[in-house]
């Protein structure tokens, strides 16, 4: 196992509001991998909604806040490909005209990771001690896949979950239609993409669908339940952290 | 100010400079003159000539080109006659007035009606030579000229091409070199048309289903003479 590391968790605004379980699953996985985890209080969001809406000034202001909040940690880890991608791929680009900030952004980017790829690629985690007696399929979130190369890592760790049968999702790499504000600005198009995604999911016969991004999961879970589907949705971290039996799936009743 | 001056001036303003200084322009001119190849896929270049010919045949057939391999020039008229009969086509063809084709023993097939010249609207079958064949993608390279009118490649429904094994080159870059060797310098020395032909005419415009013979020939037949000579290039 790699040396102990001081990791700051980038909670993400969606996990903070909708599903803290994902955050606690991430903490458990990181601690099991020998990391000391802290959660900087001065974080709110990575700024992507502002950035993708063309509001560069607010995006930069939020980015400065993030850069300051996460200074000094060995690593910054987010249970989200899109938030980690924002920091890793877009923060340096955002400050292209400001050499001092650009350097700070690049420095932060170099130690920022999406959760599952951090566990596998940096901490060398090969297996997890978890059980989940279900057939599961996996949706590749776009940012994680294309900006950060997250593809094999979740599959590798899921293969070690006791009792889990994995069914590959046809069109796994096709966007679910969330896209942040896209989902509410162009709801008809977003809905078509969601319908196609859940049709692919249903066709696998899987009992649950997993992904590494809560944005995708809200879209997918929301469409599955509106369509009356019995397929469950969870964040992959929850299954890997052995919480599949203790935390209800996304959008399920908690009573 | 002419449109030309406006456009060139606009480009220079956008690039933040005036006209290129002589030295910079000289470098670009040298780049053109050197015409160095970029990366050439190993697919064909890694093969020896016989394997290269086999690759050409395999890739050509994969796109519905038919290929008949014959031992020598003597066999060509017979193959033409056989092919036309097998395809239920009349024994008539429009032939490129090319000395190499003229020299074939057509007299042995007197029933073949051959008209030399460019294609007419009523021609059903044409016969042409080619400059080379590119093994990389099963592609024929044909050039226009006094002896090789381009209409023969496109108007008739069936196009037969005579190819020697020694004409099969590895890559398109080999084809450009052949063109330069043959044409000398300057653009007016190039032929009017260079056609790279990879299989018969086709379209997928109706429900993505591939149909052959959209406007050009629906049949492309290559008579490949297995001459043992080495290719003049690699």
């Amino acid at each position, binding site marked *: 196992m790699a040396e102990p590391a001081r990791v700051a968790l980038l909670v993400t605004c969606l996990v903070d509001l*909708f599903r803290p379980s994902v955050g606690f699953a991430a903490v458990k996985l990181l601690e099991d991998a020998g990391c000391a985890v802290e959660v900087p209080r001065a974080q709110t969001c990575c700024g992507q909604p502002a*950035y993708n809406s063309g509001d560069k000034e607010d995006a930069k202001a939020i980015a400065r806040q993030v850069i300051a909040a996460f200074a000094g940690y060995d690593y910054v880890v987010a249970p989200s490909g899109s938030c980690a991608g924002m920091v890793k791929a877009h923060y340096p680009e955002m400050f292209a005209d400001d050499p001092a900030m650009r350097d700070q952004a690049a420095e932060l980017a170099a130690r920022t990771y999406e959760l599952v790829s951090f566990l596998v690629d940096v901490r060398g985690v090969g297996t997890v001690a978890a059980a989940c007696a279900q057939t599961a399929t996996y949706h590749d979130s776009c940012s994680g896949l294309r900006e950060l190369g997250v593809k094999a890592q979740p599959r590798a760790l899921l293969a070690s979950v006791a009792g889990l049968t994995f069914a590959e999702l046809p069109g796994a790499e096709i966007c679910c239609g969330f896209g942040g504000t896209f989902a509410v600005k162009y709801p008809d198009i977003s809905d078509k993409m969601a319908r196609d995604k859940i049709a692919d999911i249903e066709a696998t016969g899987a009992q649950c669908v997993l992904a590494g991004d809560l944005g995708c999961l809200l879209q997918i879970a929301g469409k599955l339940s509106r369509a009356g589907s019995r397929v469950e949705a969870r964040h992959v971290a929850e299954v890997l952290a052995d919480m599949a039996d203790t935390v209800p799936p996304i959008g399920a009743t908690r009573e | 100010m002419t449109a030309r001056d406006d456009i060139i001036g606009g480009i220079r303003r956008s*690039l933040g400079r005036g006209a290129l200084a002589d030295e910079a322009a000289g470098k670009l001119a040298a780049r053109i003159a050197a015409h160095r190849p970029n990366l050439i896929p190993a697919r064909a270049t890694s093969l020896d000539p016989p394997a290269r010919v086999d690759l050409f045949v395999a890739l050509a057939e994969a796109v519905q080109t038919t290929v008949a391999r014959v031992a020598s020039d003597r066999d060509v008229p017979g193959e033409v006659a056989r092919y036309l009969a097998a395809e239920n086509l009349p024994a008539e063809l429009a032939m490129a007035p090319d000395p190499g084709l003229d020299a074939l023993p057509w007299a042995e097939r007197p029933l073949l009606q051959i008209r030399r010249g460019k294609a007419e609207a009523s021609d059903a079958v044409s016969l042409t030579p080619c400059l080379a064949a590119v093994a990389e993608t099963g592609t024929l390279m044909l050039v226009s000229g006094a002896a090789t009118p381009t209409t023969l490649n496109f*108007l008739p429904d069936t196009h037969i091409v005579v190819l020697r094994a020694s004409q099969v080159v590895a890559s398109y870059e080999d084809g450009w070199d052949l063109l330069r060797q043959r044409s000398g310098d300057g653009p007016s020395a190039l032929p*009017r048309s260079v056609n790279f032909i990879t299989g018969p005419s086709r379209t997928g415009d109706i429900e993505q289903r591939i149909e052959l013979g959209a406007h050009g020939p629906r049949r492309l037949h290559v008579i490949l003479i297995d001459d043992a000579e080495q290719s003049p290039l690699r």
Partner: protein
Amino acid sequence: MEATSHTFTDNARAGLADPVLRRALGMAGTGFPARRAEAIARLPEFEALRDQGKAIKDHTIAHLDFYLELYERNVIAAGGVVHWARDAAEARAAVLDICRSVGAKVVTKGKSMVAEEIALNEHLEANGITPVETDLGEYIIQLRHEPPSHIIAPAIHLMKEQVTETFRAAHTALDPDRAISEAPQLCAEARAMLRPQFLAADAGITGANFLVAETGSSIIVTNEGNGDLTQILPKAHIVVASLEKIVPTLEDTATLLRLLARSATGQEFSSYTTLSTGPRRPGDLDGPEQYHVVLIDNGRTALIGGEFQDMLRCLRCAACLNHCPVYTAIGGHAYGWVYPGPMGAVLTPALIGLDEAGDLPNASSFCGRCESVCPVKIPLPKMMRHWRERQFVQGKAPPVYRHGLKCWAWVARRPGLYHELVELKARMLGWLGKRRGRFRALPLAGAWTKMRDMPAPEGRSFQSLWAERQRAGK
């Protein structure tokens, strides 16, 4: 053509609701990506070629003045004529003049997106000249008076029943009882109807996939052979091409050709790749007597040196369209002009203005699949974002989003306040949604809940729970 990009949302809704379009796009959406993937699997050097193609295009744009002047000299040396056109009007006028000079009544056309862009056909028709589209897809949509919906497969939005209906209505001299319900029959009929047009045409207009500076040549890449019949039979061959089509050498062209067909249709090479240099030579038995190139700017040079320069690398292969979940959901007509899909979302505002085409760069989830398949690595989502930045700065985004975003960003920059509000919201929505676990309707979230449920929050914010855990000493 008249742009309808400003009614994008309505166009898209119509496209989503159209069952014929759904079937047609369904076939295309699976076919093209699979074939491209197979073609690339057969060429290990593909990724390296992408980098080289990008480098060739970038180098060319950085020296575009030099290469254009060289290209012109070589066209002239080969016996051709170059006409420079700053905008669509000058381009149309140049083509019309050439057609008139050869007394053209009927003109055949190969497929050309730039000809659509400058609205060439309407102009010729208005001046007594009949343009006949010869690419099968373009011919079909010309008969239907529709614009193309895809840059390489213009009739991709149609099922064969519609083509049958169109041919029956248009080819009135033929036997009305003839059987033309199947693709082979339709193709054969189009071939038969167009052959006399090829032979009768006085001038032939083609586009150009590439213009080779080294030799003054134009290159067209087709599968049907219509572009070749268009250019070799009539008296005059007119090439219409935008000036970023220039490539320095034949070798550079070979690199780009290796990328093009594989990215577009998954073919190793298209059926016909033709290099044309000047008019027929002395002694040639066929070929055009005149060769003209109309070099069109129409907004390209304005992109050089700016945020959108990378768009000038575009090879018009349509890989981005074929892999875009938005394009395959709504079809090409929804974009409202000549260029649909991701490349259209970037290029259209540049050519016809952000006010007209503002929706296009916004209707994207930034999934990035387009950029990942672009043969010359154009950063399409980044440039769509640049358009959004311009809209934001100009105050063009709808007020509810602008103000909503500003409020949210203001709070997000104040972590203490933010954490309190998030905890409040988590408790409230968590409590309201506890029984069902999700909301079928939510005030202010109608755009979401109209078609999806909104999962309920768990009821506490992560930050609050973490703070409690820390205080309890874990």
